[in-house]
């Protein structure tokens, strides 16, 4: 009856991780200067930087090249793999797609290029959207890859984002993993019965799944709320742990937007 089987050990030579939390699939674990900065400091620096980029006149092509260079320096310091950052940047494609159309419909004067009549102003607008969009997306991706979602939310709270919004966002984060698990278990159960979605004819099944998932999530929301009330929840969640932010952190993080702002000023003066 009792067996003593031979144990087959598979070779699993994996990268190290120390316990990612929920919603941290964008986070790339490294030990770097950028990772170590407090979340709210990084967030403020990223937002100010993006504002500076947006406020730069489109004709200052050189300034945008420098901004892009600055982002790459940050990516380098954060020790993020470039291919990963580039792959994630593909997300901007649908947003900049219409920028491609602008040169065709913009006002006079027009220029000839490869037999196409293109609006000069349209070309500049398209360049502006593309450049500002790309730099903004690259900045956000860097922020997301170097900051844990939980820290980001906590950071938002300390810089004055309303408590309720932060709570809603943190519940979304907490339960997105649960709902995703629900969804993947339902998917496994569907596939076990021989179903795999391939096209429009399967939308009905997917819609039914979505409906069932919605009801389950809604009911779970009610149960969670009841469980919170029965432990004395009264609308606020008190956070005992607050990260310590030093002046040095601010100086380090704000280096990026400050350099960018000087370039913007030069661009405005010289144009």
């Amino acid at each position, binding site marked *: *009856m009792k*067996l003593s089987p031979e144990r087959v050990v598979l070779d699993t*030579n994996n990268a190290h991780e120390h316990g990612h939390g929920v919603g941290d699939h964008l986070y790339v674990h490294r030990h770097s200067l950028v990772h170590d900065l407090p979340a709210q400091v990084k967030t403020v620096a990223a937002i100010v930087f993006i504002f500076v980029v947006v406020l730069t006149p489109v004709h200052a092509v050189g300034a945008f090249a420098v901004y892009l260079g600055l982002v790459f320096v940050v990516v380098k310091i954060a020790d993020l793999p470039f291919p990963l950052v580039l792959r994630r940047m593909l997300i901007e494609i649908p947003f900049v797609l219409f920028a491609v159309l602008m040169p065709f419909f913009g006002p006079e004067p027009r220029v000839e290029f490869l037999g196409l009549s293109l609006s000069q102003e349209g070309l500049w607008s398209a360049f502006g959207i593309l450049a500002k969009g790309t730099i903004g997306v690259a900045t956000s991706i860097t922020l997301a890859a170097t900051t844990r979602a939980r820290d980001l939310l906590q950071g938002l709270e300390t810089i004055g984002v309303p408590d309720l919004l932060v709570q809603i966002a943190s519940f979304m984060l907490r339960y997105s993993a649960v709902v995703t698990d629900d969804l993947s278990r339902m998917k496994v159960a569907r596939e076990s019965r021989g179903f795999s979605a391939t096209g429009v004819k399967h939308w009905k099944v997917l819609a039914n799944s979505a409906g069932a998932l919605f009801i389950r999530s809604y009911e779970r929301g009610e149960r969670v709320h009841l469980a919170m009330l029965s432990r004395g929840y009264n609308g606020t969640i008190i956070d005992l742990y607050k990260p310590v932010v030093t002046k040095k952190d601010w100086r380090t993080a704000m280096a990026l937007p400050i350099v960018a702002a000087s370039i913007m000023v030069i661009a405005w003066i010289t144009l």
Partner: protein
Amino acid sequence: MDHTLKTPPSLDVSGLAYAYPDGNQALYGVNLQIQPGERVALLGPNGAGKTTLVMHLNGILAAGLGTVHVGGLAVNTEDKDALREIRRRVGIVFQDPDDQLFMPTVREDVAFGPINMGVTGAELEAQVMQALELVGMADYADRPPHHLSFGQRRRVAVATVLAMKPEILVLDEPSSNLDPASRRELADILRDLDITLLMVTHDLPYALELCSRSVILSQGTIVADGKTIDILCNDSLMAENRLELPFGFDPKNTLVK
């Protein structure tokens, strides 16, 4: 054992090892054969790899090493047509019926699997009603699943895979969260089914009641295989694998049919 030479085993797992993408190895070389008509309980503590093993039986997970054969057909996650047949042959009833039931009515939910296998028309209707009758839920065909009791939902979940006429029925914790009456009703239904059965469970009296044979999966390998009654009466084997009988339950004094 002569007949086994002619008909292939319902389930043949050989040297199955698997590690999750994060590097966590769950199975360390599982060997398990189940002959047609056998009823086997898969026992083991939490985290032994039971669910991981089940996920390999119909190709939801792809083996890191080793093979799984169902009625002689190899589970190969690359071959889509073979995989469809594998998923028909292996009927898995998941632990939470809410994961399995998602269509607006019981009838549509039970029809979901057969439709995916290409069954239509009168044959489909017959298969659906037959499956529902087997679990005693034919009267509920037009009800929405979420209005049923938990025990009824579990039975409908069993019907959804029975409708696919599987070679082997795999049940993940069939008695969990059921009240004693629902638990007994489900046992009556399962006992009457003429099908090969693999039952993953912590409910040892249930295993004894329904399965003459049991295997223990512990730390990713099968560490014991034998008659359920012998395993439950082997105190040292039970203790080694964190298996415990409910208070007051003595398998030696139980009448097993």
